[in-house]
């Protein structure tokens, strides 16, 4: 497992330098603009893509057919991608929260901000939970197409639900100026759903990969 994570982190750090810089830029920009929603959303969503990117590099060099000959199980090959995604999303979420609290100190409610970031992290994990099994089964190209579809759906879902149920769940235009009563409960429920979906996704992915021909 350690070997797989080391490989992925090393490959991504070499090949994705530009994206890391972009993520840092977005995170800091988000701390200084009024409409910071997208600047917080984008880095977390992008980090959720990294396991897919790592998987595409694996496909390119046929790593899996060689990796399986090493003291590595198919289960490890799958789990390493989830760990990479979860750890990455957690890291960037904590970083985004810290940067925004630091530079928006006094101008924003930490609780509301934390809720929003937790919601985005949960949404990005749900994306990963849906895409990884698809990518492991059909390849990363089809996985990315599926990802585009899920991102559009997840971004549109609050607005659709807002319109249908009048539940007040629309994306905030300015977090500093709006107070979200009941948001904490909703976000925690969402995070729990995301966690349960992750567990389910891991189980499905392991089963898919267990039967997959690696050649």
């Amino acid at each position, binding site marked *: 497992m350690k070997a797989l994570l080391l*490989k992925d982190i*090393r490959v991504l750090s070499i090949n994705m330098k530009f994206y890391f810089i972009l993520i840092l830029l977005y995170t800091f920009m988000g701390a200084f603009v009024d409409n910071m929603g997208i600047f917080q959303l984008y880095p977390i969503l992008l980090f959720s893509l990294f396991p897919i990117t790592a998987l595409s590099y694996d496909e390119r060099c046929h790593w899996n057919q060689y990796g399986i000959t090493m003291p590595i199980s198919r289960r490890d090959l799958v789990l390493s991608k989830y760990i990479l995604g979860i750890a990455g999303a957690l890291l960037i979420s904590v970083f985004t929260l810290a940067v925004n609290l630091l530079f928006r100190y006094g101008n924003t409610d930490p609780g509301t901000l934390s809720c929003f970031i937790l919601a985005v992290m949960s949404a990005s994990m749900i994306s990963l939970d849906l895409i990884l099994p698809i990518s492991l089964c059909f390849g990363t190209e089809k996985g990315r197409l599926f990802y585009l579809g899920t991102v559009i759906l997840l971004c549109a879902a609050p607005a659709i639900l807002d319109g249908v149920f009048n539940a007040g769940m629309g994306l905030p235009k300015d977090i500093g100026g709006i107070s979200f009563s009941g948001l904490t409960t909703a976000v925690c429920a969402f995070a729990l759903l995301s966690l349960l979906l992750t567990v389910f996704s891991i189980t499905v992915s392991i089963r898919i990969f267990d039967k997959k021909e690696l050649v």
Partner: protein
Amino acid sequence: MNTAANALEIKGLTKHYPAFSLDHIDLTLPMGSVMGFIGENGAGKSTTIFSILGAIRRDGGTVRILGQDTAQGIPLSLKEQIGVVLDECCLPETLNLKDINGIMKAAYRTWNSKTFFRHVHRFFLDETKRIKDYSRGMKMKLSIACALAHDSRLLILDEATSGLDPVTRDELLDLFYEFIQDEQHSIFMSSHITSDLEKICDYVTYIHKGKLILCQEKDGLMQRMGILKCSETVFRDIDPAAVHGKRTTAFGVEALVERQKIPAGLVVEHASLDDILIYLVKSDMSRVKS
């Protein structure tokens, strides 16, 4: 240490695809030996090797590696003792040797960095370059260095010398010779470069269209078989049981025959492994019996 008598035992290995099938492959590689696995392109060599390694699921048969059954998959502890070299370098191209060493060290409990870099220096591999900047020969040498830098007892090589120049191939064969000096070490290598296999192998196995057509000791096979060149008239008097392949030319008949069954007076020339493969493949023959 597992002191199994055989490094590799395959019985009834079967794998079905819509347009191709591996059909009940049986072979045994005794410990301390080198087996050449020969076949033309598309014969099923790589399919057999990937079935052994668990990269593809077999439909039937058993595989025992170093005495351990692999029906439920190859145990991780057993994988420590298997060194694999595939026909292409499957390591991420943007990494360098230091990265590879770090990854392998994390993967293998028995990884020896000193041995790895000793082989790297022996092969004159540039430590500062990324894998994508290596030539095909360098990538193959790197793969072999990785296979030898942990506690491998069985080397499985899938067309590891294909596409390499004769000098590089000779260097690699020397390395394999060194590896095989330990009686607990064995090599299973697939190739269609039979000249390499003639130099190093103790046993040869021929596969053709997914079927095993021969599995014998190399020296015995090459002594037993020969090429007979004669006229059609003379050929008609040859015992059919002695003939394992023939082709008709403008000058007569050329046939792969068993020397002992050919009447005295007829000249039977030396048959290389190449000749044996060509004659066996180009005619529909049953298994060569020992």
